[in-house]
């Protein structure tokens, strides 16, 4: 039975394991050596990008999603920032206008 299942099985698992390890270890060696501490680089990038965004809008930390995909050729750092909706801002503005009016009255 085993040779039959080998015949019909698409791909053995060892090459997949080897590919996964090669990518992972290439990244880990970079960060452990200290030569190009990649984990720190990511943390730094994230922090500085967030600082710039915060300068312009107030962001709820819970509404920031950070995703990562490390690849052999390149990695992708994805930062999803939920910008407060236009309606929220308008509502706040209305409230403010109202307050201003109230003060005037």
């Amino acid at each position, binding site marked *: 039975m085993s040779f039959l299942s080998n015949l019909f099985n698409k791909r053995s698992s060892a090459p*997949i*394991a080897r590919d996964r390890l090669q990518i992972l270890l290439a990244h880990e060696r970079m960060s452990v050596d200290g030569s190009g501490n990649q984990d720190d680089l990511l943390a730094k990038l994230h922090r500085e990008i967030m600082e710039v965004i915060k300068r312009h809008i107030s962001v709820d930390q819970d509404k*920031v*999603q*950070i995703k990562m*995909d490390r690849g052999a050729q390149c990695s992708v750092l994805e930062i999803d920032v939920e910008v407060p909706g236009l309606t929220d801002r308008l509502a706040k503005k209305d409230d403010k206008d109202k307050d201003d009016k109230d003060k005037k009255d």
Partner: protein
Amino acid sequence: MAKVLVVTSGKGGVGKTTTTAALGAALAKTGQSVVLVDFDVGLRNLDLIMGAERRVVFDLINVIQGDANLAQALIKDKRIETLSLLPASQTRDKDALTAEGVAKVVSELRKKFDWVICDSPAGIERGAQMAMHHADMAVIVTNPEVSSVRDSDRIIGMLDSTTEKARAGEKMPKHLLLTRYDPQRAASGDMLGTDDVLEILSIPLLGIVPESPDVLKASNLGAPVTIAEPSSAAAGAYMEAARRLMGEDIKVTIPTERRGMLDWLFKWRAA
């Protein structure tokens, strides 16, 4: 009510991480929400077994130190929607696991999930202690082999003395999961029997997982065996164990030698 479960053993290489992944996925498959927490700071591997190694951004230590919030550090499984992973840090050392920090993270996880499964590092040091500290119940992974049984006994002692539950004077429910069970050697009497191990450790049996190439294959692929090879005997044993953890009263399947037709034929010809 959320349950915090620690997967522990004392000895290394007996199958804690494999078990954490396989049990977690089995529970999540039934619709329960499950988070797997890797406590092996500095030598993490649960991310690799789960196939999430390329997606790790933040880890348990980042959350403890406030560099990231929990939602940002959790990695959602791509195959099962109700399954998440909180990886350990690869670069920091174990001292960063503070008791208060771990307590805060575990109590936050309790609010979000039905099951919090803590994958303990080998040994009896800080990492292992922190992994078991807040547990409501424990799965002790043991191989039918003398040094593993001895180390399990030591860990059982720690579960009954150093954990929060023990200090509150409560009893910690413990379950034995026998892994790497070899039916052939069991039949020939060259392996500690299930009854022997149960008698020595005297804790209830959660399941018997046979030694299986499917487990290795699953780890190569980066998937829990209960996802990668759901029809294998090993996955069956984990699925059974998960049902038992959820309170079902089912009989433990004892793995038997399963031979294909060709094996029989070759045996007969060789004779």
